[in-house]
Structure formats: structure tokens, C-alpha cells
């Protein structure tokens, strides 16, 4: 039995997808952000969408376990079964992490028989669509389904899914750090010291304490010539010997965190 889906991705993605900037000017930034989330296509595995949490049952809004809200998703897998009913077409796609039902309601083009592609079981496909739930059962409402002809796309998809997942985790981490620094009135840089003054008692290793002072944009080390090592010893409350401080500063210099300025004993941060 043959099975058909429309395969005109370019037209189906009009008005959405990557890089859509409509609404950026003059619109409400939060609604723009929300729309961007809805428009973006997240590469995922079926296990990820199975574990996604429903943030709003009525509106079919989901978020991955990492907290990333998902609008459209894309999966790559093999067709394990297919079925056609009067109202829609069903494909069960297995990507090795699980099997997911993909449902397509035929559009005008498929109804007219244009751009139809036949799919067979055991064939690799890429499915892009919206994650939906009905009666506690989740499925993907297909926007685009196409055969995979270059099988490097299989490896690419899984690497892409891992990258998307880690990128969101990293973004979340840095935004939390940025919020913390903004809240305490210091520089917005993620690596800046979270207080406005020098706080050598903040704890951490000698290197961390030194970095905190060097990286404070409103501190004594922020001038053009930086700060001298003997001055740094005083700021640290005399807890460390001059040699220990010099050794730690040299290490920071070797790692590129600070550079020497007017003399070999003066150093300034590379980050401010």
C-alpha cells in the first residue's frame, strides 16, 4: 500500500521558522520572545518529548526537562507503521529512543495530489511539526515530512539535538549569573564580582580571590596600570606572603586572565 504526504516544506514554513524577525520593532518584547519560542524548531529525540513537561494542558505548551519551552520539534527516525483514515494520516516513527505517532491532516495541496511523496515502512524520514496531546496521549502534528536520502543527516540530527540541549543549559546558566550580578548592582558581565566592593574574605582559593579583585570594574585594579603585587597583598589582608601572591599572579598571567602593565609587578585584568 502506498502512503502519501505533502512535501512542500518551503511553503509550509512561510511566516515562521528560523530567523523570523517580524514583531521585533515596536512590539511587546515578551510577546516577541514567546513568539520566537513558538516559531523556533527544536531538534529532539522521542525520549525527550516523552519526558517533556506540559506547562499548559489546554494550549499544548510543553517544556523539555532542561526547562526549554518547545514550539516546533523535528525528529529523525524510521517509519515502523502507517495508517490512513478518512480525516488524517498516521505514521509511527521510531528513532531508536522510542516510537512516536505523527499525524497529518491533509492540506489543500495534498488533496489536489500535488507534491505528493510516497513513504514506505523501514524508511528514514525527518518529521517536523507541533507537539500536541489528546487524552493524555502525545503526538506530533506534522507540518513537514520528508524522506532522508543522505544518511549523514541521521548522525547530524542527533548531534544537533545534543548541541541544542547543551546550548540551552549554558544559556540558562549564564543568564542566572547575569541576573545575580545585576541584582547586586555590579557589572553585568557574568564573570564579574557579585558585590560592588573588594571582598577578600569572600572565600575560594588565592587565585579566585585575586581574580575577583582584578575583575571588579569599579575596584582598585581597574585603572590603566592595574595594581601592584604589594598593593594586592595589602588588599588580601596580609594573609598571604608576597611570594605566594606573586606565584598566583604569574599563573593567572600565564592563563591569560591578567597582563603586566607599567612594570612586571603591575597587572591588570584582561576581562574589564
Amino acid at each position, binding site marked *: 500500500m502506498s502512503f502519501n504526504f505533502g512535501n512542500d516544506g518551503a511553503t509550509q514554513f512561510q511566516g515562521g521558522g528560523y530567523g523570523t524577525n517580524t514583531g521585533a520593532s515596536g512590539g511587546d518584547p515578551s510577546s516577541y520572545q514567546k513568539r520566537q519560542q513558538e516559531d523556533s524548531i527544536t531538534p529532539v*529525540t*522521542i*525520549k*525527550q*518529548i*516523552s519526558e517533556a513537561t506540559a506547562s499548559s494542558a489546554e494550549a499544548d505548551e510543553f517544556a523539555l*526537562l532542561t526547562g526549554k519551552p518547545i514550539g516546533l520539534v523535528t525528529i529523525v527516525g*524510521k517509519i515502523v*507503521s*502507517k*495508517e490512513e483514515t478518512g480525516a488524517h494520516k*498516521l*505514521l*509511527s516513527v*521510531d528513532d*531508536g*529512543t*522510542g*516510537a*512516536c*505517532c505523527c*499525524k497529518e491532516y491533509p492540506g489543500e495541496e495534498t488533496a489536489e495530489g500535488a507534491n505528493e511523496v510516497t513513504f514506505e515502512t*523501514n*524508511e*528514514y524520514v525527518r518529521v517536523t511539526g507541533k507537539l500536541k496531546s*489528546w487524552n493524555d*496521549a*502525545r*503526538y506530533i502534528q506534522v507540518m513537514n515530512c520528508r524522506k532522508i*536520502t*543522505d*544518511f*549523514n543527516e*541521521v*548522525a*547530524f540530527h*542527533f*548531534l544537533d*539535538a*545534543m548541541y541544542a*540541549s*547543551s546550548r540551552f543549559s549554558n544559556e540558562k546558566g549564564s543568564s542566572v549569573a547575569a541576573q545575580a550580578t545585576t541584582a547586586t548592582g555590579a557589572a553585568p558581565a557574568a564573570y564579574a564580582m557579585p558585590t560592588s566592593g573588594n571582598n577578600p574574605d569572600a572565600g575560594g582559593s588565592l587565585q579566585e580571590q585575586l581574580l575577583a579583585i582584578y575583575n571588579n570594574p569599579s575596584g582598585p585594579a581597574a585603572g590603566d596600570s592595574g595594581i601592584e603585587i604589594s598593593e594586592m597583598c595589602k588588599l588580601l589582608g596580609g594573609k598571604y606572603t608576597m611570594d605566594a601572591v606573586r606565584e598566583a599572579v604569574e599563573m593567572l598571567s600565564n592563563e591569560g586572565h591578567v597582563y603586566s602593565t607599567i612594570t612586571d609587578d603591575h597587572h591588570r585584568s584582561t576581562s574589564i
Partner: protein
Amino acid sequence: MTTTNIDISAPKPKVNGEQMGLFSGKTVQLVLETTSNSEGGSVLKGKAADGMEVTAHLDQSLGAAPRSRFIEVEGVVTGPQEIKATNVASFGESVDLFAYNEMCKMLHAKGREMIL
């Protein structure tokens, strides 16, 4: 019958030759670059993504294995470098096995929670 739900009860992780050993008795997906297709098509030999030689025993019910250069074998790991295939599918004529191998390694390290 196509069910309208997601089923993650029977994962079939994508593996390279070395990772097969971690899934003894379990079902996996393995991409092979075929080197021989003998015994009436019931035994398939090939190199996994990491270059390891693997023998796949095909059930008669599966019919003839695809003739493509790369084949994806789905089946139960029966021993070191041996798999009993429950499904075989063509995986094309040109696949970057280095990239596929790196993908397998990453999936079973930092991407493990995404697949198992």
C-alpha cells in the same frame, strides 16, 4: 495499528562496535559497511562505525538484505561482535563513519539521558 502515543519502553540505542559489548542481550541499532553477504544472504559481515568487524545473522523472514554499501542492522547482541538481526535497512552509499562513530560516543556519554 498505529497508536496515538509515545512508547519509550523498548529503546534501541545506536551503537558502534565497541559499545555493542555494553548491550549484550539487548536490542541495538548498528550501522555496518558491508564486507561480505554470504550463505544465501543469511550472514552479513561488515565494519561498524569504529572499524570493528561484526557478523550479523539474518532471520530468513527478513528476506534478502539490502545491497547498499552501508546497512543499518537492528537486532539483539548475542556475543562479542555478533548480532542477531531482527530488521535490516539500507543506510545509503556514502556515509561519514567517523562522524557517525563520534555521534555514538557522544550519545552514550553526555547525551545518555536523551536516549536511555
